[in-house]
């Protein structure tokens, strides 16, 4: 499958601090790729480099077939959508007027405003002045702003960080729909459930380096001990090793009707991150 983002040997140094060091990854067309890491791990720096807001110190970077020196051209910017900590709205204007501005800047049809507002569950709030909106509502308008021109590639930096679970779930469904329509999404998050639910592949970023990268299920399998956790009707909790001897014993327990619950030992992405870096993913 075609790579939409290709990063080889990315290095970013701020004065004497190494923020990114020898980072390699790619994002395939049509996938949702998650960059996971705690605050200060380099997630936002990566997004800023990939969108042209920062210049890399060294490394070979290609996004949508364009090298990093093309990232500030209109042809590049019209194909990407960004939601980051640098995204903002005009507080004195209405939601509609904010989106109308960006519709015109991106030469998108004005009908797209209603469509995008519906996607972020804000169709009734178009006439409201932005300063009167809650933080979560503003985040949804920012997301609408990033999607208004139907970009091929969307960069989302912590897209649901300010949202309550209900609205976050609504946004997740919207992003999945967007992805099904062919949009490639690169998102950063420290929300494990979000990454597991949305991402086709994830990369763990810590101290400016990628520590691990794969499909969430594959990672959970890779770091599993493969033990069976069994709870019996008598209230006993057993951990059985995944081998032939245990299989016979488990089979017997099932036949005897002793097993209440049984599951394999699959760690969460957060537990894997902790195992790899010794840090909590917050």
């Amino acid at each position: 499958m075609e790579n939409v983002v290709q990063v080889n040997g990315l290095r970013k140094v701020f004065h004497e601090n190494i923020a990114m060091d020898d980072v390699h990854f790619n994002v395939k067309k049509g996938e949702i790729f998650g960059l996971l890491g705690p605050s200060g791990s380099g997630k936002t720096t990566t997004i800023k480099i990939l969108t042209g807001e920062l210049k890399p110190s060294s490394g070979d970077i290609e996004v949508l077939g364009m090298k990093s020196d093309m990232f500030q051209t209109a042809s590049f910017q019209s194909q990407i959508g960004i939601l980051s900590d640098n995204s903002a709205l005009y507080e004195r204007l209405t939601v509609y007027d904010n989106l109308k501005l960006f519709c015109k800047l991106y030469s998108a049809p004005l009908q797209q405003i209603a469509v995008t507002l519906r996607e972020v569950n804000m169709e009734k709030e178009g006439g409201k002045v932005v300063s009167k909106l809650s933080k979560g509502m503003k985040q949804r308008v920012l997301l609408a702003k990033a999607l208004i021109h139907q970009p091929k590639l969307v960069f989302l930096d912590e897209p649901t960080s300010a949202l309550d679970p209900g609205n976050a779930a609504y946004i997740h469904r919207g992003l999945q729909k967007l992805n099904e329509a062919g949009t490639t999404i690169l998102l950063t998050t420290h929300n494990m459930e979000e990454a597991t639910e949305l991402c086709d592949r994830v990369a763990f970023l810590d101290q400016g380096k990628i520590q691990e990268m794969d499909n969430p299920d594959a990672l959970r399998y890779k770091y599993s001990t493969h033990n069976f956790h069994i709870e019996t009707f008598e209230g006993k909790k057993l951990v059985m090793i995944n081998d032939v001897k245990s299989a016979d014993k488990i089979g017997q327990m099932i036949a005897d009707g002793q097993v209440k619950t049984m599951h394999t030992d699959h760690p969460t992405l957060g537990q894997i991150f902790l195992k790899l870096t010794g840090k909590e993913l917050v």
Partner: protein
Amino acid sequence: MHLQRIHAIFEKDMKDFMKNTMMLLMPIVPIILAFFYRQMGPGEEMPVMMGYIIVGVTYSAVTANCIMAMMAEENEKKTLRGLIMSPASFLDVIIGKSLVTGFMTLITLVLSLLILGIDSFLNTRAILGLVLLFLFFLFLGIGVGLFAKSISTVSVYVMPIMFLFGFTPMIELMGLSEDNLVKKILDLFPISQLIEMHDSASWLPLGMVGIWVVAAALFMYVCFIKTRQDD
């Protein structure tokens, strides 16, 4: 340049401007000042210098101050990054954002000069001088607005600009001798050059103002490029 993008930025700024009370009040200052000056000598022809005091106040209080506040607010609230990261070019953003200020400046200047006496300014060289002076204050305002990074710091920068470039004709009233170094330096400033232009047939003063415009444009461009990236 992309007309639709320029129009979109202008339309947004106009709506924003009309909801900003502080900005709406700025054009009143030179108009009231022109009215007071007119009362000082009703029926008399106003000295050219008086006209340039009004021009200086208009360009510093309306042109430079408004565009400075607008750019600094965009910079502070991070909305400028949204414009820069869109397909709009440097020229689209600068022209789009300058139109509202230009429109307000034009109305204020015409009204003020009509009150004070506009005759001295109704010739090609004077009009060209006023256009160049507008561009100087506009570019300086945009540059400082981008450099200031917040609305609160704009007030710190606007005062020296007003006194140095807007109130330069006041120096004449301070009674400095012709040999005074400060006077010699200030005579090179744009408004002094335009006042001097009225006493001669030379186009050199306009050339001098042109150099100031180019310097301000370079300053604005450097500030814009620095704003474009986080490095």
